[in-house]
């Protein structure tokens, strides 16, 4: 069976948090300093320490008192971190440090400071991004790219949309599922490449003060928060044998470029829609500022339009738009959805990564090929791209950028268009590429006409500005 093997490079644009469903017991960690490198969380081997200090009368007394806070304080003051630390997690969140100090001073029992850890290997305790999470995020995008072709989903006996049946229509029955030909391994990380952050909920409504409290989470480092980070994993696309190629399913055997195309078609508009809907609101301006570098990076790389890069959103706090289909999704929430976002430290959204792929894969048994800082390699990558990319004409470049803009535009749900278009229009009007701005403005006006919204919107100032631009 033929196959193509790639090294999938994952650049973390914003922190990625993939939870395990578990919470760290407050007695399983101690917060401290890491050789002058800032605050950190030491994951400790409490069992071993207790066993080694079994004769300590004071420890026995504290155990017998059955008070969490006293025991925690005693452990923090007496444990040798050099001997009993299994893993160190840098702490980004200053709020955690303060709360921890308060907890040690004799805070209330219910302030347990629960921490949600990331996935770790059971034996070596090294963090990693599960291959199943990567594959799941990719599958969502591929399903969304084919849902229109699949048609309306059936309902099950509880009148809920039957995802299993719909899934089979798109990908094939379990024995013929096209995704069995896509293999993605776990992406290992190194110690110190994750950090403890505080997920903070923000609302579109600036007057809303209540936020759902969230546990502290161990997320990856990233371009926007912490140190920039790149991880590597193996991706294999096998070519199905002849007898399996004609199986009944909508998704056909695909190449890497096609796969990246589907990812961009799904996630690229999602990023900009979220940016416009939330982070360009006045009360969330600081988020937009923090995302400037990421936004430019996405626009520059996606703007090439050749699908050598792919945008993906991974993990927890990806929000409903990125984990459900576009047309046929029917999420049920009593109080509605899509009104809030959860941000790392209240500054950047979770989950955005940029993918590239190189042919071939070479594993290092000691894991030394894992995540690296991107900055050092930036110049080399830039040179490589410049030398290897074929020269494209101005027309081709413009056509590709316009194509991407149209994708973004058509991905906006109709009921959200009136709210989203003003931000989009402003972006076009201020665009540095005048030629692109004019063409994009024309596309936007044509789209408004197609959706029969002209009568409703033509009185708006931004609409008028777009027409002026197209008359230039």
């Amino acid at each position: 069976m033929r196959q193509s093997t790639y090294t999938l490079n994952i650049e973390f644009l914003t922190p990625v948090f993939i939870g395990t469903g578990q919470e760290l017991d407050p007695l399983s960690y101690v917060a401290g300093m890491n050789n002058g490198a800032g605050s950190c969380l030491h994951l400790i081997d409490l069992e071993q320490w207790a066993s080694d200090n079994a004769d300590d009368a004071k420890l026995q007394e504290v155990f017998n008192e059955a008070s969490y806070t006293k025991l925690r304080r005693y452990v923090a003051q007496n444990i040798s971190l050099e001997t009993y630390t299994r893993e160190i997690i840098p702490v980004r969140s200053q709020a955690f440090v303060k709360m921890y100090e308060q907890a040690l001073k004799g805070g209330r029992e219910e302030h347990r400071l629960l921490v949600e850890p990331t996935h770790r290997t059971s034996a070596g305790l090294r963090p990693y991004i599960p291959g199943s999470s990567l594959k799941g995020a990719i599958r969502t995008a591929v399903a969304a790219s084919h849902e229109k072709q699949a048609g309306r989903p059936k309902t099950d006996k509880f009148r809920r949309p039957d995802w299993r049946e719909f899934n089979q229509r798109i990908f094939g029955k379990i024995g013929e599922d096209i995704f069995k030909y896509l293999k993605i391994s776990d992406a290992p990380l190194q110690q110190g490449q994750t950090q403890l952050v505080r997920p903070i909920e923000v609302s579109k409504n600036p007057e809303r003060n209540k936020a759902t409290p969230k546990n502290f989470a161990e997320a990856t480092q990233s371009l926007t928060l912490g140190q920039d980070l790149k991880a590597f994993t193996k991706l294999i696309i096998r070519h199905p044998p002849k007898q399996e190629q004609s199986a009944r399913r909508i998704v056909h055997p695909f190449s890497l470029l096609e796969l990246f195309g589907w990812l961009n078609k799904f996630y690229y508009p999602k990023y900009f829609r979220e940016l416009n809907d939330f982070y360009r609101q006045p009360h969330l301006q600081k988020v937009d500022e923090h995302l400037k570098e990421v936004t430019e990076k996405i626009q520059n790389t996606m703007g090439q339009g050749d699908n050598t890069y792919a945008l993906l959103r991974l993990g927890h706090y990806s929000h409903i738009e990125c984990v459900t289909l576009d047309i046929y999704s029917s999420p049920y929430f009593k109080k509605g959805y899509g009104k809030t976002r959860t941000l790392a430290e209240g500054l950047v959204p979770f989950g955005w990564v940029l993918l590239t792929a190189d042919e071939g894969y070479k594993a290092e048994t000691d894991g030394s090929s894992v995540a690296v800082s991107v900055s050092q390699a930036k110049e080399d990558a830039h040179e490589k791209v410049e030398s290897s990319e074929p020269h494209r004409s101005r027309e081709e470049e413009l056509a590709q950028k316009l194509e991407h803009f149209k994708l973004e535009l058509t991905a906006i749900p109709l009921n959200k268009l009136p709210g989203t278009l003003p931000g989009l229009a402003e972006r076009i009007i201020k665009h540095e590429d005048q030629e692109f701005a004019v063409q994009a403005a024309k596309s936007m006006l044509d789209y408004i006409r197609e959706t029969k919204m002209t009568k409703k919107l033509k009185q708006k100032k931004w609409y008028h500005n777009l027409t002026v631009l197209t008359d230039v």
Partner: protein
Amino acid sequence: MYTQYKIIVQSKLQTPLQSDTIYGHFCWGLRYHQGEEALSEFLDASKKGPPILISSALPAGFVPRPELPSLDRKALFDKAKELGFGKGKAQLFSGMSQLKEIKKKKWLSIKQWHQIRHEASDLQVISELADSHSQPKTMQVSSKAHNTISRLDNTVIEPGGLYFTREYWTFPGARFDLYCFFENQHWKSLWEKVWMEYIIPFGFGKDKSTGSGQLEFHLVETFSEDIFQLDDADAWMSLSHCVLDDYPTNASWFSSHLKKGRLGGEYAVHGPGGGKSNPFKKSILMQLPGSVLKHAVQPKGRLLENVHSDERICHFGLGLFLPLRLGGEA
């Protein structure tokens, strides 16, 4: 010819490296890469005089502790006194505690094996293990929860959306030995080819498609066959998960487990005849590595038939055995 390979696990495993499972992977690799005829040829040869015998993957440098007749009560007390350095209650208690710890030790180093195999008895094994502190630390098992989200309504699919998997993670630096016997060079070459072209690229066991079962496989050039040679051997210790032949007429000591095997490859999702799938084989009682059979002739285990409604399906109960001479009262 006997050979030894080193296996390095690069990711998590969700299927342990047992000999019968490895055989199964080899068969599927043979079928995909060489065709149905090559597989039929191998199965026919395995029914007559097996051309390939393999062990389960063992911690590098170790062999299983042999299952031998237990010490009688007097000998047990004497040993406890020896270990506890005295006859008093406290010393006896200490000695018994140490015996209890020794009982948990499941592996002998190759050197220890060479010491005991000439006159193997439980007493000798206990003495060897009492003096040593090392047991291999290779794998840790953990249970992980997964959920499957419906992309239509963002809820966990019911039923079956929440499920748990067992994962085997190796400690950094852990290695495994795989011992093999080949009838001739042809089978050895075929074996290595299937490993390199099928098992290594595609992975081993469950959830290969999300990164489990990534292995490295290396031939050990410096392997010596001494461990498989012993004059006047009157017993054999299994290195494999196998089905012992010629028992219960022969004396044997073993730990067994109930194997509920599954079909692999495409038969995991559709039946061998192309119809609805029944991926489960009938339950089989198999003997674990370390089982000892008292016999003058080297056993090989059995290729089991009639393990599935489709008669073509079989299960490898074949195994590789180390020779030893029994001492004591065995």
